């Protein structure tokens, strides 16, 4: 029998795919949705209400850039009225005067602000947006002035991994109580740009030592969450805390997904909010049922003592690298193709430097066929 159906705790709402930045590792799908596909205010509010009924306690408001939604204040207020904890995940560029205060007023609980670099030149280059670093600093100040607690999110890759100590100082200087050092996950745009983003082993090891020391030094001062790099791992992460176990996400058009990259698994069929109620989608949508629990597992996962620790790891990474979404995540040392991860990181070191070669995130920049070129069997 499959695992018992638990109510979801967390929901990631991708309110829009529109964004002023063009980060080459964006977790949005390669086929970005235009504004005219986005759910309207009332549909989001209905969805949030159904999510609260179902047991969702936290909603992460994300995108794209969620503040491009002019109704964001209303959406926050709707969640707040249902006592749902709200976390705004923003790039912090171009937020109009008075809006951050309005989000706080509407009941926003927490703000997470991304920095593409700890140095202005890096931030501006990676996001392909001149002046963005300065704007982010200003957003951080405004958020703290509005009394909002702040997390700084630093997506880490070859071009900023040496800035990790500076990211720590930056987060402290902005009075953040939390810093995420998040090694880029190679799905979506990051997979398309993998050879241009992948750090080398020496840099990864230096980073791990720096973060470990900083965590100890900053206990009680600032929390540092460390999203470790899969390609250098021994065991995989419990992706999403287990497929369809306690969290899900919703795309701008209302498609309900088990994770960011689930649409890269061609065998899955997804459902949209509105066509069915959220509770029904959560309970028995084929995409959610596909990898829920442990019944779907093959060896070596099926008999592994860690099967309910990491839930087999990331299905999308298994798809991308092993060519089989039900395979063991190749990040796992027990995967028969684990060695391929090291080969891919080595191959990446031979790739050209510089942002001339990035495929920057924008509508029509690439097609899924271009970007899914991989070295695994199809």
């Amino acid at each position: 029998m499959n695992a018992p159906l638990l109510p979801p705790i967390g929901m990631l709402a991708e309110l829009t795919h529109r964004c002023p930045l063009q980060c080459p590792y964006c977790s949005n799908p390669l086929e970005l949705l235009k504004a005219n596909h986005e759910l309207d205010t009332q549909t989001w509010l209905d969805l949030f209400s159904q999510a609260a009924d179902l047991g969702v306690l936290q909603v992460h408001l994300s995108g794209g850039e969620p503040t491009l939604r002019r109704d964001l204040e209303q959406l926050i207020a709707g969640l707040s009225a249902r006592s749902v904890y709200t976390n705004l995940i923003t790039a912090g560029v171009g937020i109009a005067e008075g809006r951050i205060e309005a989000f706080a007023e509407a009941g926003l609980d927490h703000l997470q602000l991304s920095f593409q670099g700890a140095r202005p030149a890096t931030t501006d280059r990676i996001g392909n947006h001149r002046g963005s670093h300065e704007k982010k600093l200003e957003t951080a100040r405004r958020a703290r002035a509005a009394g909002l607690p702040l997390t700084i999110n630093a997506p880490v890759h070859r071009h900023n991994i040496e800035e990790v100590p500076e990211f720590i100082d930056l987060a402290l200087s902005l009075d953040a109580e939390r810093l995420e050092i998040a090694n880029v996950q190679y799905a979506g745009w990051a997979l398309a740009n993998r050879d241009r983003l992948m750090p080398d082993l020496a840099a990864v090891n230096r980073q791990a030592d720096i973060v470990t020391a900083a965590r100890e030094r900053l206990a009680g001062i600032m929390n540092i969450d460390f999203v470790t790099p899969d390609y250098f791992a021994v065991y995989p992460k419990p992706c999403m805390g287990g497929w369809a176990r306690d969290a899900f996400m919703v795309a701008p058009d209302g498609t309900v997904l088990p994770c960011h990259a689930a649409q890269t698994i061609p065998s899955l069929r997804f459902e949209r909010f509105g066509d069915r109620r959220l509770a029904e989608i959560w309970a028995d949508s084929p995409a959610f049922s596909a990898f829920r629990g442990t019944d779907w597992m093959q060896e070596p996962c099926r008999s592994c003592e860690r099967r309910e620790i990491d839930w087999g790891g990331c299905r999308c990474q298994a798809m991308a690298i092993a060519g089989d979404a039900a395979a063991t995540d190749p990040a796992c040392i027990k995967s028969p193709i684990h060695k391929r991860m090291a080969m891919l990181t080595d191959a990446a070191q031979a790739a050209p430097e510089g942002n001339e070669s990035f495929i920057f995130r924008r509508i029509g920049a690439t097609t899924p066929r271009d970007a899914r070129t991989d070295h695994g069997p199809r």
Partner: protein
Amino acid sequence: MTALRERAIVSLRSAPSLPRHVRIQYDPVRQAFAVLSPEKVFWPNEISLDILRRCDGRSTVERIIADIAADYDSDPEDVAADVIAFLQEWSDKLLVKL
């Protein structure tokens, strides 16, 4: 390296409170109290919940220890170390403000 804040250490005179980004909430779906924080949800056991609910920014740690001891019909000296260790751990994770 500019550490603008310092690690807070629990003393009997501390008056702990929950920071703005942390709240205790009853969840009718799971019929349990949850502690909500930026990325995590905690499900405290009964005694943890009893301590956290007394973190109102007015009650001192000494007072909290006395209250917990009375509630659980035990000697304050027996519960003191546990309460202090619990508060220090939660303070170190920035879930309790001292």
